[in-house]
């Protein structure tokens, strides 16, 4: 049984935290931390990988189910760490978990003769395309904007066309990409006729749940941490100019 505790702190042993909540493996993967982690404490692990401890703990608490994230006192360069983390998770979605899910859906399609499976396959392909568009927008527009914002703060100089885009545009553009995963889980569990796919269906359900969980945290990181942080950086930049 997964036992989550929100009070992960500097002295927590990361291995124990992972045993209690294996979803923390995703956190490690997105920070590009490799296991085994021996008996390292959170503070030691962060030092070893040169990760800001406050940020690591805030993310870990989100993975442990907390959404009460206080305003983090971070250097503006930490925005780059957040962007790196998010971009690594984008690659995890597009290169690992989505293809794995698609493979299982194809397997289910082969096992089942009923025609609805074709619709499920189209449903997921279309959904994957929507997610890809969403991720592309972040990769191509918002993340470069954040990187540029940090560069301007480091150079203490604002560049041209500064008013065209802001975090508010991103906030308005930010949509829910988890909804259709829940739809698919409901279809699998409640409605799609069962034939010989019990095992594949279980594997698919686990993968969808893993993806749904990670996407939820991903959205929380963007909405609860990155957006307020970059809005503060925008204000900071305005002050420097004065």
């Amino acid at each position: 049984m997964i036992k989550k505790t929100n009070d992960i702190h500097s002295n927590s042993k990361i291995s124990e935290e992972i045993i209690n909540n294996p979803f923390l493996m995703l956190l490690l993967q997105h920070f590009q931390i490799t296991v085994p982690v021996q008996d390292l404490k959170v503070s030691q692990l962060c030092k070893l990988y040169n990760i800001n401890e406050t940020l690591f703990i805030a993310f870990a608490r989100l993975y442990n189910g907390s959404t009460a994230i206080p305003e983090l006192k971070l250097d503006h360069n930490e925005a780059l760490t957040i962007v790196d983390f998010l971009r690594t998770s984008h690659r995890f979605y597009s290169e690992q978990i989505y293809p794995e899910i698609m493979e299982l859906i194809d397997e289910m399609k082969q096992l089942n003769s009923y025609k609805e499976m074709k619709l499920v396959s189209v449903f997921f392909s279309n959904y994957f395309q929507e997610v890809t568009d969403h991720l592309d927008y972040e990769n191509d527009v918002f993340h470069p904007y954040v990187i540029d914002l940090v560069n301007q703060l480091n150079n203490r100089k604002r560049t041209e066309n500064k008013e065209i885009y802001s975090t508010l545009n991103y906030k308005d553009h930010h949509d829910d990409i988890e909804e259709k995963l829940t739809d698919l889980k409901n279809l699998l569990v409640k409605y799609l006729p069962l034939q010989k796919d019990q095992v594949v269906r279980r594997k698919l359900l686990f993968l969808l749940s893993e993806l749904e969980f990670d996407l939820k945290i991903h959205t929380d990181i963007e909405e609860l941490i990155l957006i307020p942080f970059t809005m503060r950086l925008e204000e900071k930049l305005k002050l420097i100019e004065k």
Partner: protein
Amino acid sequence: MKRIHIAVLDDSFVICEGLQSVFSRFSFIQRLTHASSIEELECLLKKSFCHIVIINPQFVQSFQSEFLKLKSQFICVKWIGIVYSHFSNEILSKLDGTIDVFDSQENISNKLLKWVRTPNDDKTTQQNKDTLSEREIDVLKLLAEGKSNKEIADNLNISINTVITHRKNISQKTGIKSVSGLTIYAVVQNYISLDNY
């Protein structure tokens, strides 16, 4: 008690009036509509859900391919022949049942109730709470056709707010929010035919 909706496809005034008169004695019949051609019937079925279509087998015989196409589109409808002249078994076998003009009132009532009985009828109240109402099914079918809230409202003669309420209820009952997810649900539940997509 289940309230059933019936459509009649027959071009005989006497038969239509006679059926209306008989059906008016059955409290479980909520709506009775009439069509005089296959095309008219198709429009009617697209507009609102019907449990039973009572059809003159002459239409099946004369417009076999059109009839079979329509039947495949509305597979949750029971297709019942109203028999008052001789038809071959081959024609009658394309239907789900028949009513004979010589059937007694009780016999007709029992047949109608038998045709609309579903496994859900015997299940618990909780399960009924999760079953879509007939109006919700009408909304779902139009939604799956890609219609907007306004188009659905116009089509069913209801307000946009009512459409939104129906949509909320559908999502709450099914656990599915997206239109594409609801389309799959509608196909699985046989509310719409896959051939249309």
